[in-house]
Protein backbone atom coordinates (compact mmCIF):
# COMPACT_ATOMS: atom_id res chain seq x y z
CA UNK A 1 0.00 0.00 0.00
CA UNK A 2 1.50 3.30 -1.00
CA UNK A 3 -0.47 6.43 -0.46
CA UNK A 4 0.84 9.93 -0.91
CA UNK A 5 -0.27 12.85 1.19
CA UNK A 6 0.61 16.52 0.94
CA UNK A 7 -0.29 18.69 3.92
CA UNK A 8 -0.06 22.46 3.66
CA UNK A 9 2.94 22.30 1.35
CA UNK A 10 4.36 25.69 0.39
CA UNK A 11 7.40 26.83 -1.52
CA UNK A 12 9.10 30.17 -1.78
CA UNK A 13 11.90 31.09 -4.16
CA UNK A 14 13.26 34.12 -2.39
CA UNK A 15 10.24 36.33 -1.88
CA UNK A 16 8.11 34.74 -4.60
CA UNK A 17 5.68 32.08 -3.54
CA UNK A 18 5.48 29.39 -6.19
CA UNK A 19 3.37 26.85 -4.29
CA UNK A 20 0.44 27.94 -2.14
CA UNK A 21 -0.84 25.81 0.73
CA UNK A 22 -1.11 22.52 -1.17
CA UNK A 23 -3.21 19.71 0.26
CA UNK A 24 -3.73 16.48 -1.60
CA UNK A 25 -4.18 12.81 -0.85
CA UNK A 26 -3.44 10.21 -3.46
CA UNK A 27 -4.85 6.75 -2.90
CA UNK A 28 -2.86 3.57 -3.38
CA UNK A 29 -2.57 2.62 -7.03
CA UNK A 30 -4.01 5.88 -8.23
CA UNK A 31 -2.59 7.70 -11.27
CA UNK A 32 -2.85 11.40 -10.60
CA UNK A 33 -1.92 13.91 -13.29
CA UNK A 34 -0.74 17.42 -12.47
CA UNK A 35 -1.64 19.64 -15.38
CA UNK A 36 -1.34 23.35 -16.02
CA UNK A 37 0.42 25.90 -18.19
CA UNK A 38 4.19 26.15 -17.92
CA UNK A 39 5.41 27.95 -14.85
CA UNK A 40 2.36 27.02 -12.78
CA UNK A 41 4.42 25.17 -10.18
CA UNK A 42 3.45 21.62 -11.10
CA UNK A 43 7.01 20.49 -11.80
CA UNK A 44 8.29 22.22 -8.68
CA UNK A 45 5.75 20.35 -6.60
CA UNK A 46 6.77 17.07 -8.20
CA UNK A 47 10.43 17.83 -7.47
CA UNK A 48 9.47 18.55 -3.88
CA UNK A 49 7.77 15.17 -3.64
CA UNK A 50 10.91 13.61 -5.09
CA UNK A 51 13.11 15.46 -2.61
CA UNK A 52 14.97 17.48 -5.23
CA UNK A 53 13.57 20.72 -3.83
CA UNK A 54 13.13 21.56 -0.18
CA UNK A 55 9.78 22.56 1.31
CA UNK A 56 9.32 26.01 2.75
CA UNK A 57 6.59 24.62 4.95
CA UNK A 58 4.21 21.70 5.13
CA UNK A 59 4.59 17.94 5.20
CA UNK A 60 4.79 15.11 2.70
CA UNK A 61 3.83 11.58 3.68
CA UNK A 62 4.44 8.53 1.54
CA UNK A 63 2.84 5.31 2.70
CA UNK A 64 2.01 6.91 6.01
CA UNK A 65 5.61 7.90 6.69
CA UNK A 66 6.73 11.46 6.80
CA UNK A 67 9.44 11.89 4.15
CA UNK A 68 9.89 15.60 3.54
CA UNK A 69 13.19 15.72 5.43
CA UNK A 70 14.47 12.50 3.84
CA UNK A 71 16.87 12.47 0.90
CA UNK A 72 15.32 11.37 -2.41
CA UNK A 73 16.72 7.87 -2.28
CA UNK A 74 15.02 7.10 1.05
CA UNK A 75 11.54 8.08 -0.04
CA UNK A 76 10.68 5.01 -2.04
CA UNK A 77 10.15 6.93 -5.24
CA UNK A 78 11.45 6.69 -8.78
CA UNK A 79 11.34 9.46 -11.33
CA UNK A 80 11.22 9.62 -15.11
CA UNK A 81 12.50 12.86 -16.62
CA UNK A 82 11.63 14.80 -19.74
CA UNK A 83 15.19 14.64 -21.09
CA UNK A 84 15.42 10.94 -20.10
CA UNK A 85 18.49 11.71 -17.96
CA UNK A 86 20.29 8.53 -18.97
CA UNK A 87 23.96 8.17 -18.07
CA UNK A 88 25.66 8.67 -21.45
CA UNK A 89 28.69 6.57 -20.54
CA UNK A 90 26.74 3.47 -19.48
CA UNK A 91 24.93 1.05 -21.76
CA UNK A 92 21.26 0.19 -21.35
CA UNK A 93 21.96 -2.64 -18.90
CA UNK A 94 24.27 -0.38 -16.90
CA UNK A 95 21.68 2.38 -16.81
CA UNK A 96 18.94 0.01 -15.69
CA UNK A 97 21.02 -1.57 -12.95
CA UNK A 98 22.85 1.53 -11.75
CA UNK A 99 20.69 2.45 -8.77
CA UNK A 100 20.53 -1.13 -7.52
CA UNK A 101 24.27 -1.56 -7.80
CA UNK A 102 24.65 1.60 -5.79
CA UNK A 103 22.27 0.19 -3.17
CA UNK A 104 24.50 -2.92 -2.99
CA UNK A 105 21.71 -5.20 -4.13
CA UNK A 106 22.92 -8.72 -4.92
CA UNK A 107 24.00 -9.35 -8.48
CA UNK A 108 21.44 -12.08 -9.15
CA UNK A 109 18.67 -9.85 -7.85
CA UNK A 110 19.85 -6.97 -10.04
CA UNK A 111 19.82 -9.24 -13.08
CA UNK A 112 16.38 -10.52 -12.23
CA UNK A 113 14.87 -7.08 -11.87
CA UNK A 114 16.67 -5.65 -14.88
CA UNK A 115 15.44 -8.54 -17.02
CA UNK A 116 11.86 -8.10 -15.83
CA UNK A 117 11.97 -4.41 -16.69
CA UNK A 118 13.58 -5.14 -20.05
CA UNK A 119 10.84 -7.67 -20.82
CA UNK A 120 8.06 -5.31 -19.88
CA UNK A 121 9.47 -2.56 -22.09
CA UNK A 122 10.85 -4.69 -24.94
CA UNK A 123 14.46 -3.63 -24.36
CA UNK A 124 16.06 -7.09 -24.50
CA UNK A 125 17.74 -6.51 -27.88
CA UNK A 126 19.17 -3.15 -26.87
CA UNK A 127 20.85 -4.09 -23.60
CA UNK A 128 24.43 -3.40 -24.69
CA UNK A 129 23.77 -0.16 -26.55
CA UNK A 130 24.78 3.26 -25.32
CA UNK A 131 22.06 5.93 -24.98
CA UNK A 132 23.35 7.86 -27.98
CA UNK A 133 22.67 4.79 -30.15
CA UNK A 134 18.99 4.77 -29.21
CA UNK A 135 16.02 6.62 -30.65
CA UNK A 136 14.01 9.03 -28.52
CA UNK A 137 11.31 6.48 -27.85
CA UNK A 138 13.85 3.82 -26.88
CA UNK A 139 15.61 6.22 -24.54
CA UNK A 140 12.35 7.03 -22.84
CA UNK A 141 11.68 3.31 -22.45
CA UNK A 142 15.06 2.89 -20.76
CA UNK A 143 14.29 5.82 -18.48
CA UNK A 144 11.01 4.18 -17.50
CA UNK A 145 12.80 0.85 -17.06
CA UNK A 146 15.26 2.47 -14.72
CA UNK A 147 12.33 3.57 -12.60
CA UNK A 148 10.74 0.12 -12.68
CA UNK A 149 13.81 -1.75 -11.39
CA UNK A 150 13.78 0.34 -8.24
CA UNK A 151 10.37 -1.15 -7.43
CA UNK A 152 9.29 2.15 -5.95
CA UNK A 153 6.21 2.89 -3.91
CA UNK A 154 5.46 5.91 -6.06
CA UNK A 155 6.40 6.65 -9.67
CA UNK A 156 6.97 10.27 -10.59
CA UNK A 157 6.82 11.33 -14.23
CA UNK A 158 7.98 14.82 -15.21
CA UNK A 159 6.65 15.58 -18.69
CA UNK A 160 8.10 12.30 -19.95
CA UNK A 161 6.64 12.55 -23.45
CA UNK A 162 7.33 16.18 -24.25
CA UNK A 163 10.53 15.45 -26.18
CA UNK A 164 8.89 12.88 -28.45
CA UNK A 165 7.21 13.56 -31.77
CA UNK A 166 3.43 13.50 -31.98
CA UNK A 167 2.97 9.94 -33.25
CA UNK A 168 5.39 8.45 -30.74
CA UNK A 169 3.81 10.44 -27.95
CA UNK A 170 0.45 8.79 -28.57
CA UNK A 171 2.11 5.41 -28.65
CA UNK A 172 4.08 5.92 -25.43
CA UNK A 173 0.99 7.28 -23.72
CA UNK A 174 -0.72 3.98 -24.31
CA UNK A 175 2.41 2.16 -23.09
CA UNK A 176 2.40 4.10 -19.83
CA UNK A 177 -1.28 3.36 -19.38
CA UNK A 178 -0.62 -0.36 -19.91
CA UNK A 179 2.29 -0.16 -17.49
CA UNK A 180 0.08 1.35 -14.84
CA UNK A 181 -2.54 -1.32 -15.33
CA UNK A 182 0.13 -3.97 -15.01
CA UNK A 183 2.13 -2.62 -12.07
CA UNK A 184 -0.79 -0.98 -10.24
CA UNK A 185 1.61 1.47 -8.58
CA UNK A 186 0.78 4.90 -7.33
CA UNK A 187 1.88 7.36 -9.98
CA UNK A 188 2.14 11.11 -10.23
CA UNK A 189 2.38 12.40 -13.75
CA UNK A 190 3.14 15.99 -14.70
CA UNK A 191 2.23 17.39 -18.11
CA UNK A 192 1.11 20.58 -19.77
CA UNK A 193 -0.84 18.59 -22.35
CA UNK A 194 -4.50 18.28 -21.41
CA UNK A 195 -5.00 15.35 -23.81
CA UNK A 196 -2.38 13.36 -21.91
CA UNK A 197 -4.05 14.36 -18.68
CA UNK A 198 -7.51 13.31 -19.86
CA UNK A 199 -6.42 9.95 -21.26
CA UNK A 200 -4.08 8.86 -18.45
CA UNK A 201 -5.49 10.17 -15.24
CA UNK A 202 -7.61 8.58 -12.58
CA UNK A 203 -7.71 12.06 -11.16
CA UNK A 204 -6.45 15.36 -12.51
CA UNK A 205 -5.11 18.27 -10.50
CA UNK A 206 -5.32 21.50 -12.49
CA UNK A 207 -2.73 24.08 -11.44
CA UNK A 208 -2.49 27.75 -12.07
CA UNK A 209 0.12 30.08 -10.59
CA UNK A 210 1.00 27.74 -7.76
CA UNK A 211 -2.58 27.10 -6.73
CA UNK A 212 -4.94 24.22 -7.35
CA UNK A 213 -7.85 25.27 -9.54
CA UNK A 214 -9.69 21.98 -9.36
CA UNK A 215 -9.19 18.32 -8.51
CA UNK A 216 -11.35 15.65 -10.03
CA UNK A 217 -11.72 12.78 -12.44
CA UNK A 218 -11.30 13.69 -16.11
CA UNK A 219 -15.02 13.56 -16.72
CA UNK A 220 -15.82 15.68 -13.69
CA UNK A 221 -13.49 18.35 -14.97
CA UNK A 222 -14.97 18.12 -18.40
CA UNK A 223 -18.58 18.17 -17.31
CA UNK A 224 -18.47 20.43 -14.33
CA UNK A 225 -15.40 22.64 -14.48
CA UNK A 226 -15.13 24.77 -11.36
CA UNK A 227 -14.25 27.90 -13.24
CA UNK A 228 -13.45 29.49 -16.58
CA UNK A 229 -9.78 28.53 -16.39
CA UNK A 230 -10.45 24.83 -15.99
CA UNK A 231 -13.25 24.96 -18.54
CA UNK A 232 -10.94 26.56 -21.08
CA UNK A 233 -8.01 24.30 -20.28
CA UNK A 234 -9.76 20.95 -20.49
CA UNK A 235 -11.21 19.96 -23.85
CA UNK A 236 -9.98 20.41 -27.40
CA UNK A 237 -10.76 22.58 -29.25
CA UNK A 238 -11.19 24.91 -26.30
CA UNK A 239 -14.56 25.98 -24.97
CA UNK A 240 -16.15 29.11 -26.51
CA UNK A 241 -16.71 31.93 -24.06
CA UNK A 242 -19.37 34.42 -25.06
CA UNK A 243 -20.52 37.57 -23.36
CA UNK A 244 -24.19 37.15 -22.54
CA UNK A 245 -26.86 38.71 -20.37
CA UNK A 246 -28.89 37.22 -17.58
CA UNK A 247 -32.45 38.31 -17.06
CA UNK A 248 -35.12 36.67 -14.90
CA UNK A 249 -33.12 33.41 -14.75
CA UNK A 250 -32.66 33.26 -18.50
CA UNK A 251 -29.31 33.56 -20.22
CA UNK A 252 -29.71 35.68 -23.33
CA UNK A 253 -27.37 36.03 -26.29
CA UNK A 254 -28.38 38.71 -28.78
CA UNK A 255 -31.78 38.68 -27.04
CA UNK A 256 -32.34 34.98 -27.66
CA UNK A 257 -32.61 32.56 -24.78
CA UNK A 258 -29.86 29.95 -24.66
CA UNK A 259 -30.44 28.32 -21.29
CA UNK A 260 -31.59 28.98 -17.75
CA UNK A 261 -29.41 29.90 -14.84
CA UNK A 262 -29.56 30.92 -11.20
CA UNK A 263 -27.12 33.74 -11.96
CA UNK A 264 -28.48 37.15 -10.86
CA UNK A 265 -29.52 39.61 -13.53
CA UNK A 266 -26.71 41.32 -15.40
CA UNK A 267 -23.81 40.51 -17.72
CA UNK A 268 -22.48 36.95 -17.57
CA UNK A 269 -20.20 34.61 -19.48
CA UNK A 270 -21.64 31.71 -21.41
CA UNK A 271 -19.40 28.70 -22.00
CA UNK A 272 -20.17 26.40 -24.92
CA UNK A 273 -18.06 23.46 -26.03
CA UNK A 274 -17.58 23.29 -29.81
CA UNK A 275 -18.49 19.61 -29.89
CA UNK A 276 -21.86 20.25 -28.23
CA UNK A 277 -23.08 22.55 -30.97
CA UNK A 278 -25.13 21.35 -33.87
CA UNK A 279 -26.85 22.82 -36.87
CA UNK A 280 -30.29 23.92 -35.73
CA UNK A 281 -32.60 26.23 -37.66
CA UNK A 282 -34.15 27.31 -34.34
CA UNK A 283 -30.85 27.62 -32.49
CA UNK A 284 -29.76 30.77 -30.64
CA UNK A 285 -26.36 31.15 -32.32
CA UNK A 286 -26.72 32.86 -35.65
CA UNK A 287 -23.92 34.27 -37.73
CA UNK A 288 -21.90 34.10 -40.90
CA UNK A 289 -19.19 31.55 -41.60
CA UNK A 290 -15.69 33.01 -41.46
CA UNK A 291 -13.60 29.92 -42.00
CA UNK A 292 -14.61 26.36 -42.61
CA UNK A 293 -12.11 23.56 -41.92
CA UNK A 294 -12.99 20.08 -43.08
CA UNK A 295 -11.09 17.20 -41.49
CA UNK A 296 -12.91 14.41 -43.25
CA UNK A 297 -14.87 12.82 -40.42
CA UNK A 298 -15.55 16.13 -38.76
CA UNK A 299 -15.51 19.80 -39.59
CA UNK A 300 -14.90 23.06 -37.75
CA UNK A 301 -17.01 26.10 -38.42
CA UNK A 302 -15.67 29.48 -37.28
CA UNK A 303 -18.69 31.68 -36.87
CA UNK A 304 -19.00 35.45 -36.71
CA UNK A 305 -22.03 36.25 -34.57
CA UNK A 306 -24.31 39.22 -35.13
CA UNK A 307 -22.75 41.20 -32.25
CA UNK A 308 -19.22 40.62 -33.55
CA UNK A 309 -18.24 37.79 -31.17
CA UNK A 310 -16.68 34.69 -32.70
CA UNK A 311 -17.12 31.03 -31.86
CA UNK A 312 -16.07 27.62 -33.13
CA UNK A 313 -18.30 24.63 -33.62
CA UNK A 314 -17.31 21.06 -34.24
CA UNK A 315 -19.79 19.45 -36.63
CA UNK A 316 -19.83 16.07 -38.26
CA UNK A 317 -18.31 15.74 -41.69
CA UNK A 318 -21.54 15.74 -43.65
CA UNK A 319 -21.87 19.49 -43.40
CA UNK A 320 -20.44 21.79 -46.02
CA UNK A 321 -20.14 25.57 -45.71
CA UNK A 322 -18.45 28.32 -47.65
CA UNK A 323 -17.10 31.54 -46.15
CA UNK A 324 -19.90 34.08 -45.95
CA UNK A 325 -22.67 31.49 -45.71
CA UNK A 326 -25.08 32.12 -42.91
CA UNK A 327 -25.31 29.42 -40.32
CA UNK A 328 -27.50 28.78 -37.30
CA UNK A 329 -26.42 26.56 -34.40
CA UNK A 330 -28.15 25.20 -31.35
CA UNK A 331 -27.19 23.41 -28.16
CA UNK A 332 -28.88 21.32 -25.50
CA UNK A 333 -29.53 23.60 -22.52
CA UNK A 334 -27.89 21.16 -20.07
CA UNK A 335 -24.57 21.38 -21.97
CA UNK A 336 -24.28 25.09 -21.36
CA UNK A 337 -21.97 26.54 -18.71
CA UNK A 338 -22.55 29.86 -17.08
CA UNK A 339 -19.78 31.73 -15.30
CA UNK A 340 -20.12 34.68 -12.98
CA UNK A 341 -17.97 37.75 -13.12
CA UNK A 342 -15.27 36.13 -10.96
CA UNK A 343 -15.03 33.33 -13.51
CA UNK A 344 -16.66 30.77 -11.20
CA UNK A 345 -19.14 28.35 -12.66
CA UNK A 346 -22.73 28.90 -11.63
CA UNK A 347 -24.53 25.68 -10.82
CA UNK A 348 -27.49 25.23 -13.13
Amino acid at each position, binding site marked *: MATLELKGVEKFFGATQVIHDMNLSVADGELVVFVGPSGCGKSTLLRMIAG*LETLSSGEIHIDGQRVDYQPPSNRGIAMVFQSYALYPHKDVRGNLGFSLK*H*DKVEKSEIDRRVNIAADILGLQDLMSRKPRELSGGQRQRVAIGRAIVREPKVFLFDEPLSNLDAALRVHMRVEILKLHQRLKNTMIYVTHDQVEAMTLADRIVVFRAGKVEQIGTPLELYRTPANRFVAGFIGSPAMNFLNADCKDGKVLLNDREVCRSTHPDGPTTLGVRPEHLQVDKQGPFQGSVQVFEHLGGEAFVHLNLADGQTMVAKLDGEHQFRPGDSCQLGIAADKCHVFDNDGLRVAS
Partner: protein
Amino acid sequence: MRRIQDRLGSVGIHAILLSWTLLALFPLALIVVNSFKTRKAIFGDPLGLPTGKALSLKGYESVMTNSDFPMFFGNSLIVTCVSLFFILLFGAMAAHAVSEYRFKGNTFISIYLILGIMVPIRLGTVALLNLIVDMGLANTLTALILVYTAQGLPIAIFIFTEFLRSVSREIKDSARIDGLSEYRIFFEVVIPLVRPVIATVAVFSMIPIWNDLWFPLILSPGEETRTVTLGVQQFIGQYTVQWGSVLAALSVAILPVLIMYVIFSRQLIRGITSGAVKG
Protein backbone atom coordinates in the same frame (compact mmCIF):
# COMPACT_ATOMS: atom_id res chain seq x y z
CA MET B 1 29.60 28.99 -50.32
CA ARG B 2 29.05 26.92 -53.42
CA ARG B 3 29.30 30.01 -55.62
CA ILE B 4 32.64 31.07 -54.18
CA GLN B 5 33.90 27.73 -55.12
CA ASP B 6 32.53 28.12 -58.60
CA ARG B 7 34.17 31.45 -59.04
CA LEU B 8 37.54 30.81 -57.48
CA GLY B 9 37.49 27.21 -58.34
CA SER B 10 38.25 24.41 -55.99
CA VAL B 11 41.79 24.46 -57.33
CA GLY B 12 42.30 28.05 -56.32
CA ILE B 13 41.10 27.40 -52.80
CA HIS B 14 43.39 24.45 -52.39
CA ALA B 15 46.26 26.49 -53.79
CA ILE B 16 45.76 29.11 -51.08
CA LEU B 17 45.40 26.54 -48.34
CA LEU B 18 48.39 24.57 -49.56
CA SER B 19 50.59 27.66 -49.61
CA TRP B 20 49.78 28.36 -46.00
CA THR B 21 50.35 24.69 -45.20
CA LEU B 22 53.80 24.98 -46.72
CA LEU B 23 54.49 28.19 -44.84
CA ALA B 24 53.39 26.59 -41.58
CA LEU B 25 55.31 23.36 -42.02
CA PHE B 26 58.50 24.39 -43.79
CA PRO B 27 60.33 25.98 -40.82
CA LEU B 28 59.45 23.02 -38.61
CA ALA B 29 60.53 20.50 -41.19
CA LEU B 30 63.75 22.39 -41.70
CA ILE B 31 64.68 22.05 -38.04
CA VAL B 32 63.64 18.43 -37.64
CA VAL B 33 65.29 17.31 -40.88
CA ASN B 34 68.55 19.11 -40.16
CA SER B 35 68.69 17.80 -36.62
CA PHE B 36 69.44 14.38 -38.12
CA LYS B 37 72.32 15.65 -40.22
CA THR B 38 76.03 16.13 -39.85
CA ARG B 39 77.35 19.60 -39.24
CA LYS B 40 78.79 19.67 -42.72
CA ALA B 41 75.50 18.72 -44.31
CA ILE B 42 73.56 21.23 -42.21
CA PHE B 43 75.57 24.05 -43.69
CA GLY B 44 76.39 22.63 -47.08
CA ASP B 45 72.91 21.56 -48.05
CA PRO B 46 70.33 22.83 -45.53
CA LEU B 47 67.40 21.73 -47.69
CA GLY B 48 68.69 18.20 -48.31
CA LEU B 49 67.30 15.10 -46.65
CA PRO B 50 69.34 13.23 -44.02
CA THR B 51 70.36 10.31 -46.17
CA GLY B 52 73.59 8.39 -46.56
CA LYS B 53 76.64 10.28 -45.43
CA ALA B 54 74.62 13.28 -44.30
CA LEU B 55 72.78 11.25 -41.64
CA SER B 56 73.99 11.74 -38.10
CA LEU B 57 72.44 11.26 -34.68
CA LYS B 58 75.34 12.99 -32.95
CA GLY B 59 73.17 15.95 -32.02
CA TYR B 60 70.66 13.79 -30.17
CA GLU B 61 73.43 11.80 -28.56
CA SER B 62 75.13 14.82 -27.09
CA VAL B 63 71.86 16.39 -26.01
CA MET B 64 70.72 13.28 -24.22
CA THR B 65 74.05 12.42 -22.61
CA ASN B 66 76.21 15.49 -22.24
CA SER B 67 73.64 17.96 -21.00
CA ASP B 68 70.97 18.37 -18.37
CA PHE B 69 68.42 18.18 -21.07
CA PRO B 70 66.72 14.97 -19.92
CA MET B 71 66.32 16.55 -16.49
CA PHE B 72 64.80 19.73 -17.95
CA PHE B 73 62.48 17.52 -19.90
CA GLY B 74 61.44 15.68 -16.76
CA ASN B 75 60.88 18.98 -14.94
CA SER B 76 58.63 20.24 -17.69
CA LEU B 77 56.73 16.97 -17.74
CA ILE B 78 56.15 17.07 -13.98
CA VAL B 79 55.13 20.71 -13.94
CA THR B 80 52.82 20.37 -16.91
CA CYS B 81 51.14 17.13 -15.87
CA VAL B 82 50.59 18.06 -12.22
CA SER B 83 49.33 21.55 -13.07
CA LEU B 84 47.05 20.09 -15.71
CA PHE B 85 45.65 17.57 -13.24
CA PHE B 86 44.87 20.30 -10.71
CA ILE B 87 43.43 22.62 -13.34
CA LEU B 88 41.11 19.93 -14.67
CA LEU B 89 40.05 18.61 -11.27
CA PHE B 90 39.67 21.89 -9.38
CA GLY B 91 38.31 23.64 -12.45
CA ALA B 92 35.63 21.02 -13.00
CA MET B 93 34.75 21.04 -9.29
CA ALA B 94 34.33 24.80 -9.18
CA ALA B 95 32.41 24.86 -12.47
CA HIS B 96 30.13 22.13 -11.15
CA ALA B 97 29.48 24.11 -7.97
CA VAL B 98 28.56 27.35 -9.72
CA SER B 99 26.52 25.72 -12.48
CA GLU B 100 24.63 23.24 -10.30
CA TYR B 101 23.83 24.83 -6.97
CA ARG B 102 21.85 27.91 -6.09
CA PHE B 103 23.53 29.72 -3.24
CA LYS B 104 24.20 33.24 -2.08
CA GLY B 105 27.11 34.80 -3.93
CA ASN B 106 26.96 32.37 -6.83
CA THR B 107 27.09 35.10 -9.45
CA PHE B 108 29.87 36.91 -7.62
CA ILE B 109 32.07 33.84 -7.30
CA SER B 110 31.57 32.76 -10.91
CA ILE B 111 32.57 36.20 -12.18
CA TYR B 112 35.46 36.39 -9.73
CA LEU B 113 36.84 33.05 -10.86
CA ILE B 114 36.91 33.94 -14.55
CA LEU B 115 38.29 37.47 -14.12
CA GLY B 116 41.74 36.01 -14.67
CA ILE B 117 40.95 35.46 -18.36
CA MET B 118 41.02 39.19 -18.87
CA VAL B 119 43.70 40.11 -16.33
CA PRO B 120 46.91 38.20 -16.97
CA ILE B 121 48.53 36.80 -13.86
CA ARG B 122 51.91 38.07 -15.08
CA LEU B 123 50.95 41.55 -13.94
CA GLY B 124 51.34 40.36 -10.38
CA THR B 125 54.82 39.00 -10.94
CA VAL B 126 56.58 41.35 -8.51
CA ALA B 127 54.38 40.44 -5.56
CA LEU B 128 54.21 36.84 -6.71
CA LEU B 129 57.98 36.51 -6.54
CA ASN B 130 57.99 37.99 -3.02
CA LEU B 131 55.24 35.57 -2.01
CA ILE B 132 57.04 32.56 -3.46
CA VAL B 133 60.29 33.58 -1.73
CA ASP B 134 58.48 34.12 1.58
CA MET B 135 56.93 30.68 1.31
CA GLY B 136 60.36 29.23 0.71
CA LEU B 137 59.29 27.96 -2.68
CA ALA B 138 61.78 29.85 -4.84
CA ASN B 139 63.50 27.58 -7.33
CA THR B 140 61.05 24.75 -6.80
CA LEU B 141 58.74 23.04 -9.23
CA THR B 142 55.95 23.45 -6.65
CA ALA B 143 56.05 27.21 -7.20
CA LEU B 144 55.54 26.76 -10.93
CA ILE B 145 52.77 24.22 -10.40
CA LEU B 146 50.86 26.52 -8.07
CA VAL B 147 51.22 29.52 -10.34
CA TYR B 148 50.26 27.62 -13.48
CA THR B 149 47.27 26.11 -11.73
CA ALA B 150 46.12 29.58 -10.73
CA GLN B 151 46.78 30.80 -14.25
CA GLY B 152 44.91 27.96 -15.96
CA LEU B 153 41.86 27.85 -13.71
CA PRO B 154 39.86 30.82 -15.08
CA ILE B 155 39.65 29.59 -18.68
CA ALA B 156 39.06 26.01 -17.53
CA ILE B 157 36.26 27.09 -15.21
CA PHE B 158 34.77 29.24 -17.96
CA ILE B 159 34.72 26.42 -20.52
CA PHE B 160 33.47 23.81 -18.04
CA THR B 161 30.76 26.13 -16.72
CA GLU B 162 29.47 27.01 -20.19
CA PHE B 163 29.40 23.32 -21.03
CA LEU B 164 27.78 22.18 -17.79
CA ARG B 165 25.10 24.85 -18.07
CA SER B 166 24.15 23.36 -21.43
CA VAL B 167 23.84 19.88 -19.94
CA SER B 168 20.45 18.92 -18.56
CA ARG B 169 20.14 19.13 -14.77
CA GLU B 170 17.87 16.15 -14.82
CA ILE B 171 20.64 13.61 -15.08
CA LYS B 172 22.07 14.84 -11.78
CA ASP B 173 18.62 14.80 -10.22
CA SER B 174 18.21 11.28 -11.46
CA ALA B 175 21.45 10.32 -9.71
CA ARG B 176 20.19 11.98 -6.53
CA ILE B 177 17.08 9.83 -6.67
CA ASP B 178 19.37 6.85 -7.15
CA GLY B 179 20.87 7.83 -3.82
CA LEU B 180 24.30 9.14 -4.83
CA SER B 181 25.96 11.68 -2.57
CA GLU B 182 26.87 15.05 -4.06
CA TYR B 183 30.52 13.98 -4.20
CA ARG B 184 29.74 10.76 -6.02
CA ILE B 185 27.48 12.66 -8.40
CA PHE B 186 30.47 14.80 -9.27
CA PHE B 187 32.86 11.92 -9.80
CA GLU B 188 30.49 9.38 -11.34
CA VAL B 189 28.13 11.57 -13.35
CA VAL B 190 29.65 15.01 -13.93
CA ILE B 191 33.19 13.88 -14.77
CA PRO B 192 31.99 11.47 -17.48
CA LEU B 193 29.67 14.22 -18.74
CA VAL B 194 32.44 16.78 -19.20
CA ARG B 195 34.69 14.33 -21.01
CA PRO B 196 34.02 15.89 -24.43
CA VAL B 197 35.50 19.22 -23.33
CA ILE B 198 38.32 17.87 -21.20
CA ALA B 199 40.55 17.59 -24.26
CA THR B 200 39.83 21.19 -25.20
CA VAL B 201 40.59 22.44 -21.73
CA ALA B 202 43.66 20.23 -21.47
CA VAL B 203 45.25 21.44 -24.69
CA PHE B 204 44.38 25.07 -24.01
CA SER B 205 45.88 24.83 -20.53
CA MET B 206 48.86 22.70 -21.43
CA ILE B 207 50.35 24.73 -24.29
CA PRO B 208 50.98 27.94 -22.35
CA ILE B 209 52.44 25.94 -19.47
CA TRP B 210 54.82 23.82 -21.51
CA ASN B 211 55.93 26.79 -23.57
CA ASP B 212 56.13 29.43 -20.86
CA LEU B 213 59.36 31.32 -20.52
CA TRP B 214 58.38 34.09 -18.08
CA PHE B 215 57.73 32.23 -14.85
CA PRO B 216 60.56 29.67 -15.12
CA LEU B 217 62.89 32.59 -15.80
CA ILE B 218 61.68 34.51 -12.75
CA LEU B 219 60.49 31.95 -10.22
CA SER B 220 62.78 28.99 -10.77
CA PRO B 221 65.76 29.72 -12.98
CA GLY B 222 67.98 27.33 -11.00
CA GLU B 223 69.79 24.54 -12.81
CA GLU B 224 67.84 21.82 -10.98
CA THR B 225 64.37 23.20 -11.69
CA ARG B 226 64.82 24.53 -15.20
CA THR B 227 62.05 23.63 -17.60
CA VAL B 228 62.68 22.51 -21.11
CA THR B 229 61.65 25.86 -22.60
CA LEU B 230 64.01 27.81 -20.39
CA GLY B 231 66.61 25.08 -20.85
CA VAL B 232 66.46 25.37 -24.62
CA GLN B 233 66.64 29.14 -24.37
CA GLN B 234 69.81 29.01 -22.27
CA PHE B 235 71.17 26.08 -24.24
CA ILE B 236 70.93 28.11 -27.44
CA GLY B 237 72.99 30.79 -25.80
CA GLN B 238 75.70 28.36 -24.69
CA TYR B 239 76.09 26.03 -27.61
CA THR B 240 75.39 28.07 -30.70
CA VAL B 241 78.34 26.40 -32.34
CA GLN B 242 77.01 22.88 -31.80
CA TRP B 243 74.30 23.20 -34.38
CA GLY B 244 73.37 19.56 -34.41
CA SER B 245 72.76 19.56 -30.67
CA VAL B 246 70.73 22.74 -30.73
CA LEU B 247 68.53 21.45 -33.51
CA ALA B 248 68.10 18.13 -31.72
CA ALA B 249 67.17 19.93 -28.50
CA LEU B 250 64.58 21.97 -30.36
CA SER B 251 63.11 18.87 -31.96
CA VAL B 252 62.86 17.11 -28.61
CA ALA B 253 61.22 20.12 -27.03
CA ILE B 254 58.56 20.13 -29.74
CA LEU B 255 57.76 16.45 -29.36
CA PRO B 256 55.40 16.18 -26.34
CA VAL B 257 53.18 19.01 -27.49
CA LEU B 258 53.05 17.45 -30.91
CA ILE B 259 52.05 14.07 -29.51
CA MET B 260 49.39 15.61 -27.28
CA TYR B 261 48.04 17.53 -30.23
CA VAL B 262 47.90 14.57 -32.57
CA ILE B 263 46.10 12.51 -29.94
CA PHE B 264 43.60 15.18 -29.02
CA SER B 265 43.27 17.23 -32.18
CA ARG B 266 40.02 15.60 -33.26
CA GLN B 267 38.45 16.02 -29.83
CA LEU B 268 39.95 19.49 -29.52
CA ILE B 269 38.33 20.70 -32.71
CA ARG B 270 35.06 19.08 -31.74
CA GLY B 271 35.25 20.76 -28.36
CA ILE B 272 35.92 24.15 -29.90
CA THR B 273 33.28 23.85 -32.58
CA SER B 274 30.64 22.38 -30.30
CA GLY B 275 30.32 25.85 -28.88
CA ALA B 276 32.21 25.15 -25.69
CA VAL B 277 34.43 28.10 -26.54
CA LYS B 278 32.17 31.01 -27.26
CA GLY B 279 32.78 34.70 -27.29
